[in-house]
């Protein structure tokens, strides 16, 4: 891990937190590079020959992100927004890369080493979910964010409520209807 990468990440996160949306586009590949390196290292540590668990991998990325504490976040909502979005982008881009590789087509995306176990997400098509979630956010931005936080960062209803500054009841309601909507979107037509 070269320190320059880390510094770049810090700067881009900072820029993004200050409202520079282009910074995110630059940030993603850097985080991917990080991810790839960490994956390689983690893989080395797996002595029993098992494939790497995606949670361990994502945890690493997350911890890297946590290291960027020098960034002054305007508020905690923004910080968690970044965290959730990064997780989502990482997983989706990776899944896209896999699908592209399977089909032999060349979707230009950051390739991860094949040795990383694919997050199967319990039968959920991550790419389709991502697209549906994007559409949901167009209908209801807050609802989209709730799903993002709950699914991609594992925050509880209570935690999400706390961060977004709304009631737990609201969170539960929004979560329930969002799930139904997404479920229908992902159903084979």
């Amino acid at each position: 891990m070269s320190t320059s990468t880390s510094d770049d990440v810090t700067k881009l996160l900072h820029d993004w937190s200050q409202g520079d949306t282009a910074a995110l586009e630059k940030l993603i590949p850097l985080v991917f590079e990080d991810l790839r390196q960490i994956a390689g290292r983690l893989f080395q540590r797996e002595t029993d020959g098992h494939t790497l668990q995606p949670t361990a991998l994502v945890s690493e990325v997350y911890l890297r992100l946590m290291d960027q504490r020098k960034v002054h976040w305007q508020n905690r909502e923004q910080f968690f927004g970044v965290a959730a979005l990064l997780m989502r982008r990482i997983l989706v881009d990776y899944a896209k890369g896999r699908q592209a590789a399977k089909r032999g087509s060349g979707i230009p995306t950051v390739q991860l080493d094949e040795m990383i176990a694919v997050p199967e997400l319990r039968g959920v098509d991550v790419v389709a979910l991502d697209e549906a979630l994007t559409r949901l956010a167009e209908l209801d931005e807050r609802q989209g964010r709730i799903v993002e936080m709950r699914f991609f960062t594992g925050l509880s209803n209570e935690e999400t409520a706390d961060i977004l500054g709304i009631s737990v009841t609201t969170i539960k309601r929004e979560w329930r209807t969002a799930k139904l909507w997404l479920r229908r979107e992902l159903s084979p037509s």
Partner: protein
Amino acid sequence: MAASRVSGRRTIRGEPGGSGGTVTPERWQQIKVILDEALEQDGPERAGFIAAACQGDEELRREVESLAACETEIGDFIETPVFRIRLDEVEPLAVGERIGVWRIVCEIGRGGMGAVYLAERADQEFEQRVAIKVVRRGMDTDEIVRRFRSERQILAHLDHPNIAKLFDGGTTEDGRPYFVMEYVEGRPIDQFCAERKLAVRERLELFRQACSAIHFAHQNLIVHRDLKPGNILVTADGVPKLLDFGIAKLLDPTQEPFALTRLDLRPMTPEYASPEQVRGEPITTASDVYALGVLLYLLLTGQRPYRPTTDPQALVDAICKTEPVRPSSAIARAEEVKEPSSETRLLRRQLAGDLDNIVLMAMRKEPQRRYVSVDQLSNDIERHLQGLPVVARKDTLAYRTRKFVGRHKVAVPLAAAALLLIVGFSITATLLWQRAERARERSQAVVTFLVDLSSAPDPKLSHGVDITARELLDRGVKKMDQSFTGQPELRADLMSTMGTVYLNLGSWDRAKQLFETALDLHRKTLGKNDPRIANDLHNLASTLRYLGKDSAAEPLVYEALQLQRQRGDTRNIEYARGLTNLAAILDAKGDFDQAERLYKEGLVIKRTLPNVDRDIAISLNNLGKLAQTRGDFPTAGKYYRESLAIRSKLAGGQPDPDVAIALNNLASLLQDQGNLADAEIDYRESLALRRKLYPGPNSKVAGSLSNLGNLLQARGDFAGAESCFREALSIADQTLPPDHPSRGVFLRNLASVLPSEGKAAEAEPLAREALAIFRAKPQTPWRIPDTESVLGGCLTALGRYQEAEPLLLGSYPILLKDKGDGAKHAAEARQRIIDLYTAWGKPERLAAYRT
């Protein structure tokens, strides 16, 4: 992929196969409200509710209905998150929040399981700033809390001026453990050196201070495991402080040793990770030695030992396989193509040699080949600073390829190494021995290393020790006598270890003294049942055997074996060795049946143990020798060949003392089988090996010479034989006490060949001297008649037939009846009788001795 579900901006397609209308954000809010309420209703009521709520808006109704219908298939859809964030990880304690008497000032760091805050006293009693480490909220699982407590416990052990102190600890209001530490305001050690532009000497001194902290931790059975500049801060006063024992390991036998859990999967710093660390192998104090090597590299050169790479595999390869560029060369590298400045040239000169070697020794790939302790590393730097020779030297392999190295160049550092090992060992030994089985293994490893070192097959090594180490070792013993007077048990442990070193050096008298004292002290300080007593007994017995005192050794071996049997401690190598030792004593006494039984019993145990091939080869060898003595040549050949195969494999192509023994024994068997030509080849090979292994006067070389001489004599090459025997005797004169049986054998051999060359007058006193030796130490009774026969031969050649006759006639029947090797010499003895009567002109007496 849901390629078909393309939606327009801010609109969305309705129910699949539905009206095809679009949903706007406003419409969605409407749908959501009805849907949400509908979900509270069950079965038939739900449909009615929806119809009523939609107030005739069919499109709305269909939309809500279709979404509500999905409830049956929802299951745990997206309920399990892909990743669970820890809220508290990013929710630090608020500034001003109180923990105990402390008030949070700001967050200063974040580790794998907790955050560190700068805090000050809230009660204003006095001004004090501290660092407080708190377990993260939500992370207080049993495992995390256990590890956190372990760190606290570790810090509590470590009261050292160069380690951040533990002040206090407790539990926060919401139940999370925390502890309060000394707040260190300082710079990472590498930056400190760079900013202050410290000279090499100053850097080394600073580094040594840091080493003292780490050594102290090791003495407390703590391995840091994450040494890097960021964890060694130097205060403005220039005092280094070791921080962050977050992944430090307390060597505790009750815990699974070094098990890396998932929780260890926090970012570490691969540049400082040792090969065993990146491979996930057990991490020991040697891993800290490695990290210190990397750190020293960085401090001296300003560079990391391996080229920066973004490819983790490349880094792992570099760590595990690549030899780092020598620090002195790394400096040149940093200069790129430019002409090196005078400063660089000076620095390069300062680093070349000792410092290069010290850094690289600390960074060796194999943990067991690094410095044995941090203290040893630190001492070596001190020696360098004082202009004394250092322990570190270039890698052994490189060493071996060198054609010739001046004796003293090697001898001095090697002897120093032996001494330092012992002294280093002494400090850690107490704790290690007393507190953990794991640690016991480690100290055992040190002992093994010591012992291996002193019996190293590398001729330069053993030679060096032979010549010069004794004085240093003697000093070590003296120092030990003075230093550990109040710790008899430790002293005994050390004496035992040193005894082993002396034993391997062939300083048997010194070894004997040490083992005797160790045994005495151990008997006084330990319970009867302690395995160390049995070990001392075994060691002393082995030493006594080397000294030719089998009869004194025998009862000790019995006692040791008895002790081990009482403890039920018979499935181990010490017991098996004891059996082999006892067997060898009985073997030498001619009690072959008993000896064979014990050899085999020992072998059976050894075959069940791991990593004792060398011992197995010894058993096989001795069984081979026994079969050979009994005349069972095919069985002997079988044992010898297996022994030779094992030893050759162990030697891996390097000159090896055990291979030399195996070749020698095989040669003697070939000789017995009458295959003199092949026997000569093997004898010569064995001799050549031993000459390589032991360039100085050495009893093993002497033994080979004697054997080769016997063979040459049998082949009629008397001059060749004489020269072999003379050299053997000369070596014995330099290395053995005058009354040693081996010296007796060489005297006897020379006396037996000289008459064939017309030098009987010279031979007679030699034979008489040999006879006197054997009569004084009759462990091998047949040696007496055999030598009498040789003396008789000398007297025959001198024409003193009447003196010769009783010697020759008396000895022959005894040899003939001997159950051991004596019988082999009966034929020679008979030939001498024939020679006597032939020379004397009494053919009538001859008849009885003709076959």
